[in-house]
């Protein structure tokens, strides 16, 4: 083999090897390509998900709950993001020191905290809430310690900057910001935010660099603007508290309403509570009842307005018609009835001004059962007010066929009917606005049923004049305003306890001002007063005066009287407007028939006798769902559970009496 041949064969051999190498490389490339096809196309979705999981995270975003504002835009309730603090007990080196640090800053019981930590350590639990929803100052102090075993989580917290102001209307929320009472509960679907998901892309250090809304986007809760005026609300609550404390009453309520629109300008109830503070076991559950809408009572003499209106509409009786009052004695139904004053006869306006019971009975007898009942219903009694508040009571107006022989006399004086303060305000608005029954409402710009004419306008003008006489010369002198004309009616009704009427009174006053063109209706009721100082003229009329006087100033209503009115007479002889109560046994509020609308309502109307017969609520806090259900079933107590884990909050509180038909609401959380 010569050199050329050798080179040729060598080159051929090399080329063959290179060809094989190229074929091998090509094959390798094909394999890689196939693998790429498998990864990029066939299993694209799977690997995409795996890749996304590495750097994309779905984050639950909860925007703040809507604020509750008064009519002037003042915040009555608002939500803020705040810190909650938790620890990992397994990381704590010295539980004693840790509990001392935390307890001193967060105002907690150190021994209890230490016990909780030791329990958690013993059960190898790696998570323990120390305190949820801290005050900003507490959070700042704790963060400044910079301790690695203290962890924070941001949560939304509801604040009520005006504290007790309008607490019964605004209501409160639970630990997870679900509405528990008041507007917070009834308008929860409007106020509550929609918790949504946001897709966040982050780098290896966890720093986000892209954010994308999912189809389930978060939405903030809507603000709710109430018709309340916080200034009037404050005065109403302040004056109500003052009169209740001064006259040793149990409870009371005030409603101020615009008679033309039905807007509630103020709604106060006493006793009250601070919605910022979670309910404690030792709290009086009655403090959370909204007496203005939930607690019906026998109105007494204020109801004579209805009787006299019915008389003007259905009989020939006019304001100057003389009504025989039998010198304070009336024989009927086989018994003798005594009036508080021995009037021989009074004109119709005098019956109202001096609150003569016998005069009202005589007028009621002229009106007749059916007409009287018809007019009671025309004024809106016996139906719910429609306000977005739990426990909106219907009251009680029995149909005439259920009336006893004495019922017409009792109803004429405001007994044998149960009404609420807001119902009285609505009825008074009928007189004040020219005969229209308005729909009370609490939310601004809310679409409500249009007012309907229930009384002739001329009748209401006559009634206004007669009610003005009550204030000028009758039992309502304490309600006279400076610079404004006012009209109203006092009322004092005996309270029934244990099936008998007592000498404790429901003292009330309902009125409006100015008389010619009323701008505001105010109704004041207080329960539990006694003695001469417990009459409506003494207890409730002064509250009306202070509140109405301030309201007219705030509302820029020009005065309609030349100067300051003279001080009312100090003599108390004409203050007595006590309605005769014992013509029939006291009424008890019957079990209200629940309809679909009221299924969700747990705060039912309560009446003292019914409440006493109710079962006591056990303490469910700290129990699991199963344990709660077992205990509730054993005790026959209906419960409404929410969430899962351990029971954290319950309403009503343990030890409270559960009114018939009400459920115990229990919130669970992990």
């Amino acid at each position, binding site marked *: 083999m010569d050199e050329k041949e*050798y080179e040729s064969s060598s080159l051929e051999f090399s080329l063959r090897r290179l060809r094989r190498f190229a074929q091998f490389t090509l094959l390798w490339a094909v394999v890689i390509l196939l693998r790429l096809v498998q990864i990029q196309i066939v299993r694209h979705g799977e690997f995409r998900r795996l890749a996304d999981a590495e750097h994309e995270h779905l984050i639950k975003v909860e925007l703040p709950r809507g604020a509750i504002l008064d009519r002037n835009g003042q915040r009555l309730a608002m939500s803020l993001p705040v810190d909650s603090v938790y620890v990992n007990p397994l990381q704590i080196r010295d539980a004693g020191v840790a509990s001392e640090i935390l307890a001193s800053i967060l105002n907690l019981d150190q021994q209890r905290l230490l016990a909780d930590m030791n329990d958690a350590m013993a059960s190898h639990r790696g998570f323990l809430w120390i305190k949820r929803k801290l005050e900003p100052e507490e959070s700042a102090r704790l963060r400044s310690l910079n301790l690695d075993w203290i962890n924070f989580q941001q949560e939304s917290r509801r604040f009520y*900057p005006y*504290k007790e*102001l309008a607490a019964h209307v605004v209501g409160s929320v639970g630990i997870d910001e679900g509405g528990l009472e008041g507007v917070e509960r009834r308008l929860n679907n409007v106020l509550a935010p929609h918790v949504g998901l946001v897709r966040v892309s982050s780098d290896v250090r966890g720093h986000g660099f892209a954010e994308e809304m999912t189809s389930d986007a978060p939405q903030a809760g809507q603000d709710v603007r109430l018709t309340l005026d916080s200034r009037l609300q404050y005065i109403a609550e302040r004056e109500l508290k003052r009169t209740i404390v001064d006259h040793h009453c149990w409870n009371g309520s005030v409603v101020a309403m615009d008679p033309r629109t039905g807007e509630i300008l103020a709604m106060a109830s006493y006793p009250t509570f601070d919605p910022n503070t979670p309910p404690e076991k030792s709290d009086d559950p009655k403090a959370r009842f909204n007496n203005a809408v939930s607690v019906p009572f026998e109105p007494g003499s204020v109801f004579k307005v209805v009787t006299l209106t019915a008389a003007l509409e259905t009989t020939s009786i006019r304001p100057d018609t003389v009504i025989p009052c039998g010198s304070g004695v009336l024989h009927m139904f086989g018994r003798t009835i005594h009036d508080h004053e021995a009037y021989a006869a009074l004109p119709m306006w005098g019956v109202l001004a001096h609150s003569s019971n016998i005069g009202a009975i005589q007028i009621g007898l002229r009106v007749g059962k059916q007409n009287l009942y018809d007019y009671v219903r025309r004024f809106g009694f016996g139906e719910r007010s429609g306000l977005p508040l739990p426990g909106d009571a219907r009251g009680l107006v029995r149909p005439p066929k259920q009336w006893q022989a004495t019922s017409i006399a009792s109803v004429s004086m405001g007994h044998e009917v149960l009404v609420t303060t807001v119902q009285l305000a609505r009825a008074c608005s009928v007189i004040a606005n020219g005969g229209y029954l308005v729909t009370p409402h609490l939310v601004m710009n809310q679409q409500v049923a249009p007012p309907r004419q229930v009384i002739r306008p001329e009748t209401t003008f006559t009634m206004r004049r007669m009610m003005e006489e009550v204030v000028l010369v009758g039992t309502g002198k304490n309600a006279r*305003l400076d*610079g404004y004309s006012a009209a109203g009616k006092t009322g004092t009704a005996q309270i029934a306890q244990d099936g008998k009427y007592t000498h404790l009174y429901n003292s009330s006053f309902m009125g409006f001002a100015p008389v010619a063109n009323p701008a505001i209706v105010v109704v004041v009721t207080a329960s539990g007063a006694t003695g001469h100082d417990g009459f409506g003229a003494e207890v409730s009329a002064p509250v009306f005066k202070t509140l109405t006087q301030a309201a007219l*100033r705030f509302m820029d209503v020009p*005065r309609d009287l030349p100067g300051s009115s003279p001080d009312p007479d100090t003599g108390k002889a004409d203050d007595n407007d006590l309605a005769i109560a014992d013509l029939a046994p006291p009424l008890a509020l019957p079990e209200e028939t629940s309809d679909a609308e009221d299924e969700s309502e747990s705060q039912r109307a309560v009446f003292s006798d019914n409440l006493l017969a109710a079962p006591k609520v056990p303490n469910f806090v700290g129990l699991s769902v199963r344990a709660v259900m077992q205990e509730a079933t054993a005790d026959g107590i209906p419960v409404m559970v929410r969430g899962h884990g351990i029971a954290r909050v319950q309403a009503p509180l343990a030890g409270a009496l559960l009114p018939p038909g009400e459920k115990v609401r229990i919130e669970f959380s992990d």
Partner: protein
Amino acid sequence: MATLAAIFDRFPFARTAVQAPAVSRDTTGYLIRPIANEDIYHFVKRIDNSRVVRDADPRAGRACWKVIGTGLAGTVVLMILMLPSVFSLLAGYQLQALRSERQKLQTAIATQELQESRLLSPEALYKVATEKNYVAPTADKMVYLEGNRDGSRLAQNLRQNAELQQQ
């Protein structure tokens, strides 16, 4: 299996090595049998390139610059193509930082609003008013101007007063 040495053996330059004198081709019995072509490793050819002058190759230079230019252009194009993504990423970081800052500011504003509401509560104002001995005006102390509420009557009065003063 061809070894590397065998492959070299097939190349022409390797053959010259074969012809090189054997250095240790001793066949004495006590020595290990020589490894095939082991002497190739002991062959050293001294080459003196000091007098070699490299020919100028303008084509190779152009090709080289072309490659460099193409590479650079490709890199620039790639960078330009990637620029929006990079800016988008950087903007994303900035956006997230701004969002976080906005959240903090909103919380701060809400905290201030809460504080403002607490200070402006009717109870707080009433307390301040009581401390400063303020009283609510009585009905006879209040003057309601006739006409529109925008103070047109007040403006008229002021104008009249000004005219009187000028006269």
